Each structure stands twice: as C-alpha cells, then as structure tokens.
C-alpha cells in the first residue's frame, strides 16, 4: 500500500492527513516533495496527522526528521498528531519523542502553534 496525503487549513495551520506506509523509495520521496512544496508556498506551520499510517521504517523515520529540520530551518514548526502505537513506540525507542512535539488531540495541537500561526 502506498502513502496518501491530503491537506487542509485550520486556523493558520496546515494539517496533513497521511495514510498508508512511509518506507524507503517512492513514499519517502513523496513526503519530501510534499514538505518542500508546502514550504515553497509559505506554509510553515505543519501538523502531520499520522493516525492512519500503518507502517513506517527507518527511512520513513529519517524522512520525518528531515522534514522537521527543513521546516525549522525556514522558521516554521512541524508537529505530529495521533501516532499509532507502532509509530509511537518507534519514536520512543529512537528517542525522537524528545525531538518532536506530539499531540493526541487536534484542537490542542492547533492551539499549540499559537495565535500568530500563519499558514
């Protein structure tokens, strides 16, 4: 199963609903390009909703790290929403829960970007 992503704007935050597998190859490239496109269009506050991500490998984890760095370097914020247990466990054992701002509630996550959020 490949990765699918759809975006919506909520209070100045671009919420990206991602489903499927994020693994080495096409899906990682797809995610990388998607983040570049959002940044190029000035969308610097990104909330990745991973509720329907069924599998992520070490390359997919690397792609999330790469996206986080790219967004931060542009002065933006990238946060994660609704991790499955598998993804949560992966980020925990790789200590990336100390890096990513992870939320379980979308409204709280949106609010955490602050009133100055501008997509």
């Amino acid at each position: 199963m490949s990765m699918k992503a759809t975006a919506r704007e909520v209070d100045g935050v671009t919420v990206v609903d991602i489903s499927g597998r994020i693994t080495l190859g096409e899906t990682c490239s797809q995610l990388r390009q998607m983040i570049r496109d959002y940044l190029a269009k000035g969308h610097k506050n990104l909330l990745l909703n991973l509720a329907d991500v069924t599998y992520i490998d070490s390359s997919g984890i690397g792609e999330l790290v790469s996206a986080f760095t790219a967004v931060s370097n542009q002065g933006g914020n990238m946060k994660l929403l609704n991790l499955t247990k598998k993804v949560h466990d992966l980020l925990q054992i790789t200590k990336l829960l100390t890096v990513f701002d992870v939320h379980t509630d979308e409204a709280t996550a949106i609010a955490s970007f602050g009133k100055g959020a501008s997509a």
Partner: protein
Amino acid sequence: MTADANAVEATLDSTLENVEVADEIAMRMCARAGLEEEDQHKVEMAVHESMINAVRHGNKSDASKKIWLRFEIRADRLEIHIRDEGTGFDVSQIPDPLAPENLLKVSGRGIFLIRTFMDEFRIEHPAGSGTEVTLIKRLNSNQLKVHEGGHRP
C-alpha cells in the same frame, strides 16, 4: 522459492519491490510461528531493515545481484538468515543513533532497530559468499504449540 511447513527459502533480485516480498514472507512465518501481532511487527521490521541493507549497502542496488533468504521455525525460535553478495561492513563503525548529536540525522537507525527488535542478531562474512545476517526471535511454549499444530490452552 522453496517451502515446507516450517521453513521457507528464497533467492531474490536486489530490488526494493523484493523488500516487500521478504516482508510478506516474514509475516506469514511469524503467523505460523504463533507470534503475537506486536512481535510480528518487530520481526517484519527487522527483516525489512536487513533487506534494505542487503539491497542498498550489500549489493549496491545492483538488481542482478541476489539476496538469499531462509526462514525456519525451530523448536524454540524463529530463525532468519539473509545473505547478500556484498563485502560487508563493520557494525562498530556505525554511530550511536541515540547520541544527542545523532538524533537529527536522517539515516543510521536500521541496525539499531534490528538489534532492538530481535532476541539475537549476528553478522557473518562467509568466505567468498557475501554478508549473512542471522535474526532470531525466541518462541514461548504457547507459540510452539501453535506451529506444532496444537491449540492454545
């Protein structure tokens, strides 16, 4: 591909598509071995990462080079062998992905995940035949009853 009730062997071209083939074999053998879903995911991921290493680092993405796999459910364990045609690598040279200075690196977590998810992990370089990794997941008594055709208590 050859298979009997408790063993599967396959020789695959070095392609990313075949990483998924190995993932599927891993899931089938995990189910046959009676592993719980969480352990199935761990084994699938360890096989997936080992296959990626074999395709990219071992066989340098040369599709004509082969990767040999063997999955075997033994008395007390699921044992998996994955062998490529590469020259191998020194695991001690891989930076610790948990070190603060490495947390934001894009790569370098595969071997760490394999070690974390499996009960045993070995890398060998058989003379003239590439690099072979051995992955072992131990089975408990309930799991053994399942793959021997018995029933859970």
